[in-house]
């Protein structure tokens, strides 16, 4: 296991140490718990030639693609959901702006199964998805075979073991035991599949607090290399029990990502000139952050236990 009573490091060091240029990585979350603070740090450190392994990616994926960090996407979807189009991804794939991006195409389930196989240390996983479609035609890592038991056709996908996974959780202890409320995506599985794991969290809690609700620990500390406490780490997205999605911020981003030039203005303003995640939060302002928190907690609060 990855042993250690205190695995805290800084946001800067987490990205510098675990994400060398040319490596592969995964983000936890999707729409909720996306680790934006990590993505911004990647941009500040001018990371490049990275492979992003994912099921679906939204705003955060487009931003690191637009910033030129990514060479390859192994995944199923890059867009901005119902908020808008994935213009950074489009420019990168269609025209190589700012960097040509190659896609290794899967479905969400197939991409998830690659993490599951990776987490189990088995070389492949079978599925009945993608049969009959053109996805295997354009991705020769998907192998079609006849099941040796029944003779039925199945598709095989290979294990994914990203070099590092960055996973944001609500609460973690110093060893990296992480507890998640709300959507999980594939995060418990990705934590096991990745060679290194960096946990960001809204709050550091005692190990005793973790033990109170053993059935809720989603990320085992024994898979975790580093822990970074980063409040509001997922802004402008959601984190259940902590803050609501900042939809105006996302929609305004859509105005800027219409061209590479205006996108880069946005990056300068929000990522580079702010200097740090704290600088970014300061620019947003405490009143805005408080309101996002209020909007969330008016609707959902992490249950507290009676003593």
């Amino acid at each position, binding site marked *: 296991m990855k042993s250690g009573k205190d695995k805290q490091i800084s946001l800067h060091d987490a990205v510098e140490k675990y994400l060398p240029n040319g490596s592969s990585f995964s983000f936890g979350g*999707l*729409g*909720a718990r996306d680790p934006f603070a990590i993505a911004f740090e990647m941009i500040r450190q001018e990371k490049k030639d990275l492979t992003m392994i994912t*099921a*679906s990616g939204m705003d955060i994926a487009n931003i690191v693609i637009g910033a030129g960090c990514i060479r390859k996407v192994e995944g*199923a*979807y*890059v*867009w901005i*959901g*119902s908020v808008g189009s*994935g213009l950074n991804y*489009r420019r990168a*794939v*269609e*025209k*190589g702006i700012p960097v040509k991006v190659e896609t290794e*195409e*899967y*479905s*969400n*389930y197939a991409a*998830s*199964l690659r*993490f*599951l196989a990776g987490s189990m240390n088995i070389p492949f996983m079978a*599925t*009945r*998805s*993608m*049969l*009959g*479609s*053109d*996805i295997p035609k354009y991705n020769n890592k998907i192998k079609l075979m006849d099941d040796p038991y029944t003779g*039925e*056709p*199945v598709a095989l996908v290979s294990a994914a073991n990203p070099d590092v996974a960055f996973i944001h959780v609500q609460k973690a202890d110093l060893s990296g035991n992480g507890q998640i409320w*709300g*959507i*999980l*995506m*594939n995060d418990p*599985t990705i934590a096991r599949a990745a060679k290194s794991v960096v946990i960001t969290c809204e709050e550091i809690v005692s190990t005793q607090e973790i033990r109170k609700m053993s059935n809720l620990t989603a990320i085992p500390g024994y898979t975790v290399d580093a822990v970074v406490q980063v409040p509001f780490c997922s802004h402008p997205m*959601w*984190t*259940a029990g902590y803050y*609501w*999605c*900042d939809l*105006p911020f996302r*929609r*305004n981003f859509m*105005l800027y990502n219409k061209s590479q030039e205006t996108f880069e203005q946005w990056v300068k303003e929000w990522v580079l000139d702010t200097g740090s995640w704290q600088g970014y939060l300061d620019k947003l302002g405490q009143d*805005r952050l408080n*309101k996002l928190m209020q*909007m969330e907690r*008016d*609707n*959902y609060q992490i249950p507290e236990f009676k003593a």
Partner: protein
Amino acid sequence: MLAEKFTTKELMAVCCAHEIKNGELVFVGIGLPMMGGLVAAKTHAKDSIFVYEGGGVGGMSRRVPWSIADNPTAENALMIHEMWRLFSDGQAGYINRGVIGGAQIDKFGNLNTTAIIGDKSYASPVVRLPGSGGANDIASSCGETTIVMQLDKGFVEKIDFITSPGHLTGPGSRKKAGLVGRGPSAVITQKCIFRFDEQTKEMYLDALFPGVTIEAVKAQVGWNLQISPNVKAVVTPTVEELEIIHTLDPKGIMLGAKSDDEEDFNEFFQLMKQAYEAVELDLG
């Protein structure tokens, strides 16, 4: 009682609602399909449960999700799964229906959401689209699929990339490919509803929206479209159904109202707060 006035989007949402049967477990996308699900859940499909790709099952919220894994998708949920587990449940046959869309469709209901390749290549296409997301999985394994998409130049003889399987090349081809689900049963557009012939598995025009002609539909379809011998008029929204829509989405955001101006955060805060404070949840 049928309503007298409604928008095309509202009609589409209600058509989508009518596809959903009571007691179904339904994979529902964001926007119009979700509104269809919410209408169904409050009218004829009270025992149906709605699931999102992010893993939330049966969530109930005073808030409207803007993506398939937003907090509201998991709020007050019956359960929350990892994504692989939810799709596994789909592959195992537990999910009766999925609602998906596409940029291109052919007469067998095969969908393209990967790339408009045109005269270029898959690697550098004319238009790169989002990719499958979960659509391929839903189209492969859910009991049946309802397709919601614009009737426009995307209705073509041959799509550039089969992202999500419809009836592939016709009768028997899904089974031969090894697919679990029965495939698409309806295509809801802004002009009409198409269904699939039981024998040929080919799409045919089944019902028209008010004021739309058969010829207007044929003009948009890139193959020799089959027409039902008894083309119906779609069932339009009831007053009750419209009321549900207007209560849940007073500003029409779910059905696609967008702004191109810089938005003010404090206005957003007030708007959202008023909206969720006006909703009362019945958690059963």
